[in-house]
Every structure is written in structure tokens, then in C-alpha cells.
């Protein structure tokens, strides 16, 4: 037994640290090596070494730097073994590269470069998200496959093909020039939003809320906002993420088997006031720009405004639902997606009663049949209407569709009650 037993990480902790550092390690190596595959393989080899050493030696003071250095050594070893003249040249270059581990400036941010490469318009949209989650988020192929509801082999092929295209077609590894940036943004914002959402409510059965993903998406959006302070949708996405992230401390209950706490039961004093204030300031900036005759708000600005209304309310009952409904109407004009309609139906139920909300929810049955939140939202409305049997069936259907442990615990709690506790 090591004398530093309490600081000795178990294999699970090593994997968690590795996942947290994955994007940084791969991004730096990709820049130094000019080869994503090599960077990813070297990072994976560094994990094997970490799994051997950390449980006995303890966690190094800067695990990210340790992983990068170890991975870089492995990559150089491999390049030497393979003895290809171009690679040897690269290895020589790399040894001379003493760029510090930490990012030094906005434009120099390696992870931002990696995002723009992963979200290049020459890659298929579904490949962009998958690559970003794989390389930046450190998700495994099976996890990404589960998130997209496709077979693992399909997802593995999709990622392999995209990486081969990056290499073969010489998709550049850099942040686009200022003039090209706005055109390239949309794809990047869409992907960052998806990464954030995966952290907000994870698809797999691991950690139910993956703060490292929400924070990574938030961090990258912040960097984009610094680069492009005048881009309203970047500002909107940043505000949206801040206002949602602010609620994280109140989103799980304190039970061992932590369950999600729905918005109406959250302890609002646990919301992060600093994040709320920052998000509100950004939303006010967006509103002022529109009021001054700027372009009408895009999807992310409208979504941020919805979150601003929620985080502005001292209690759930005090929420300005009329405002929420008006914003969802605005959103549907931009993005008539079934999920947006489902959220609008929730606001409608608060304003006009559960019967009206349910009628709208039921219209989405076909399109959202595989979406757990459709079943659980419907179940909540049915329960308010006293239709408990149907409500139970809805919660059970939701349970069958989600692997997220906190969402499952929440649904199981609700199923354990014959009726909902009074509000």
C-alpha cells in the first residue's frame, strides 16, 4: 500500500483526467505533427502509460502536460521506427518546437484550430460533430455511436473516412482568415451547441452531467466571442451556455443515486449568480443591437433570451410564460424543429393549462417517438390531468429510451409515487 494512498488515482480517475485533457493533447500534437491520426494514436498510447504509472506514482502535478509530453515521445519513437524521410524531417521540426503547453493567445489556441478543422464545410455535417466529440471531447466511438443512434461500425467508418479526407485533401489545421470567419462560423456554432448538449445531459450511462464537455464548449465559445465580439450569434450561443451552465449546481439532487431535479423544483439559490449575470449582460447586448436596427436575432440569441427569462424569475411560478411563449414562436419561425415545438408546448401548458399543452405535445408523437423528453413531458402533463395510468406508461417509455443515470433516477422516483406530490 502506497503511503500516498489517498492521492493515488484509480483507473476510472485516470480515464476521467485523460478524457478531460484529450482535446488539448490531441490539438497540440496535431499542430506539431501535422497529422491527426498520429496525434490521436500517440494520445491513446500515453493513456496506456498513465494507466500503468498513475495508480502507483500518483497523479502528476500537471496531468495535461504529462500526457502531452508522453504522447509526443511516443510519436517521435514511432516516427523513428517508421523511418520515412518526410516524417523524419517532421520529427526534427517537432523536437525544436518548444511551444508551451498552455495556450498563449486567442489566435494561437490549438483547440480552436482543431474545431475549425473538425467543422470544415468539406466534411459531411454528421462527420463534423462526430469528429469534434471524438477528438476534442475525448468520447469513444461507441459513445458517439450511441449519441447518434447509429451502429458502432457505421460511426467508426464515418470518423475514419473524415480523418482520411482531412489528410488526403489537405484540409488546413488553422483558424480561417478574418474575412472567411463569418461564413465558417455557422458549422462551428452548431457543433459547439451539440457538444454542450452532450455535456448538459449525457447520452451514455457514465457521468450523467459531463461538466468537462459543457465547460469545454463554453470555453471555445468564449474564445470565438473574443475573436468575433461583433458576431451576434456567437454572443447568443455564449449567453445561452452561460445561463444553462449556471443552473448545473441545482440540477442533481443529493441522493447517492443522483436524480435530475426539474426546473420547477430547483433550489434557485444554488444557481451560479456570476454566470447568470454574465449571461444576462450578453442577452441585453443582443437586444440592444436588435433595437438599434441590427439584424433580427438568430436561433441562439432567441434561445438565450428564453434562458434569460427563466433565470430572471425568482420562482418557477413567477416565470413570465407569456414572454417564453412569444420567444418560442419567434424561434419556430427560424427553426421549426419538433424539439422547439415541444418546448413551446411546455410554456403553453403553463399559460393555458395542461390540456392545451398536451394537445400540442400529442401532435409531435410521430416525430419524437424516440425522444425520452417527449415521453416524460407528456407524462408530466397527463399526471396533472389526473391520468395517472397513462402518465406511468409515458415515464416507462422514457425510461426505456434513456441510459442517462440521473434522468433514469428522476423517472424512477416519479414512477415510485402513485401520484405527483402536490405543488
Amino acid at each position, binding site marked *: 500500500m502506497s503511503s500516498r494512498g489517498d492521492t493515488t488515482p484509480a483507473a476510472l480517475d485516470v480515464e476521467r483526467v485523460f478524457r478531460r485533457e484529450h482535446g488539448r493533447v490531441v490539438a497540440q500534437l496535431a499542430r506539431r505533427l501535422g497529422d491527426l491520426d498520429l496525434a490521436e494514436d500517440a494520445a491513446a498510447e500515453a493513456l496506456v502509460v498513465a494507466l500503468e504509472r498513475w495508480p502507483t506514482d500518483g497523479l502528476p502535478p500537471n496531468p495535461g502536460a504529462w500526457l502531452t509530453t508522453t504522447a509526443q515521445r511516443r510519436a517521435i519513437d514511432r516516427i523513428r521506427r517508421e523511418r520515412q524521410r518526410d516524417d523524419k524531417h517532421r520529427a526534427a521540426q517537432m523536437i525544436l518546437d518548444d511551444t508551451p503547453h498552455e495556450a498563449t493567445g486567442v489566435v494561437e489556441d490549438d483547440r480552436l484550430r482543431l474545431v475549425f478543422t473538425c467543422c470544415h464545410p*468539406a466534411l459531411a455535417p454528421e462527420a463534423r460533430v462526430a469528429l469534434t466529440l471524438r477528438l476534442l471531447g475525448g468520447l469513444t466511438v461507441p459513445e458517439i455511436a450511441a449519441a447518434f443512434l447509429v451502429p458502432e461500425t457505421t460511426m467508426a467508418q464515418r470518423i475514419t473516412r473524415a480523418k482520411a479526407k482531412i489528410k*488526403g*485533401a*489537405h*484540409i*488546413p489545421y488553422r483558424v480561417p482568415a478574418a474575412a472567411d470567419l463569418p461564413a465558417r462560423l455557422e458549422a462551428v456554432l452548431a457543433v459547439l451547441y451539440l457538444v454542450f448538449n452532450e455535456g448538459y445531459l449525457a447520452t451514455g450511462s457514465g457521468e450523467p452531467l459531463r461538466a468537462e464537455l459543457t465547460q469545454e464548449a463554453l470555453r471555445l465559445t468564449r474564445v470565438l466571442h473574443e475573436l468575433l465580439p461583433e458576431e451576434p450569434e456567437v454572443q447568443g450561443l455564449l449567453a445561452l451556455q452561460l445561463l444553462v451552465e449556471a443552473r448545473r449546481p441545482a440540477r442533481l439532487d443529493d441522493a447517492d443515486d443522483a436524480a435530475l431535479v426539474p426546473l420547477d423544483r430547483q433550489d434557485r439559490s444554488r444557481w451560479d449568480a456570476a454566470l447568470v449575470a454574465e449571461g444576462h449582460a450578453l442577452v441585453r447586448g443582443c437586444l440592444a443591437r436588435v433595437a438599434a436596427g441590427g439584424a433580427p436575432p438568430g436561433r441562439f440569441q432567441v434561445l438565450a433570451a428564453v434562458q434569460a427569462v427563466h433565470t430572471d424569475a425568482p420562482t418557477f411560478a413567477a416565470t413570465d410564460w407569456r414572454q417564453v411563449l412569444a420567444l418560442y414562436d419567434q424561434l419556430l419561425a427560424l427553426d421549426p424543429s419538433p424539439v422547439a415545438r415541444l418546448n413551446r408546448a411546455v410554456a403553453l401548458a403553463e399559460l393555458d393549462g395542461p390540456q392545451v399543452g398536451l394537445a400540442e405535445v400529442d401532435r409531435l408523437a410521430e416525430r419524437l417517438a424516440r425522444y425520452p423528453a417527449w415521453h416524460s413531458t407528456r407524462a408530466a402533463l397527463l399526471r396533472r390531468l389526473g391520468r395517472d395510468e397513462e402518465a406511468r406508461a409515458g415515464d416507462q417509455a422514457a425510461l426505456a429510451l434513456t441510459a442517462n443515470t440521473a434522468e433514469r433516477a428522476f423517472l424512477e422516483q416519479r414512477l415510485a409515487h402513485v401520484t405527483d406530490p402536490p405543488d
Partner: protein
Amino acid sequence: MPQYLLSVHHDEAGTAEMAEMTMEDMQPLFEAVDAFNTRLQEQGSWVFAGGLMPIEQSTCVDATGEGAPVVTDGPFSESKEYLGGFWIIEAADLDAALDWASQGSAACQGKVEVRPLQGE
């Protein structure tokens, strides 16, 4: 530096439309493509380019078997679209190649496919 094939595909409808055009109609197109070619050459990105004669003038040769090569009239595949012309360019990376391709597409008024050539 990486090389890319920029290819322009024609379909039957496009060919019929072009057959209707007079030389005068075509003149602005020729001029735009000439100007594009000049830009490619001036910036050192030009490798090679060519427009192809109509697909009806195509001939296929198959010498994969053991006997004499088999020569047949017509294109390799019975597709609705076929190669009408191409450029081979040198570009620093895909972004640079895509930029050339959009200029080429605007010049020849056709969709351009960008495909990397295998490295040495």
C-alpha cells in the same frame, strides 16, 4: 505542394442548352475562363488544363484480358453526367483549392468538383 483536379461535369440538359448557343453567346464564357486561366498562371497555381470534345467522340480500350485489346465506341459508363473539362492546380491546402474552384465555377458557369491527387 498538394495538387488538385478541378473537374467540370456536363449533363445532357446542359449539353443541349450549349448546342443552342451561338458563338456570340459563348464569348463571355470563353473570356471569363481565359481570365481565370491567366490568374492561375500568374499566381503559379497552374499545372495543366483542358476542355474535352463531346462524349460521343469517346472510345474505350480494354486490354485486361489475355487476347487482343477490345476497342469499343462510346464512354466507359452510361452515366447522365460526364467530364467536360478540367484543371490540375497546385494549392497550399484545400481552402486555397476551394477558392480557386469557386472562381473557376463562376467563370465556366458549371459546378466544379475538387479532388486531391495522390502525393508522390
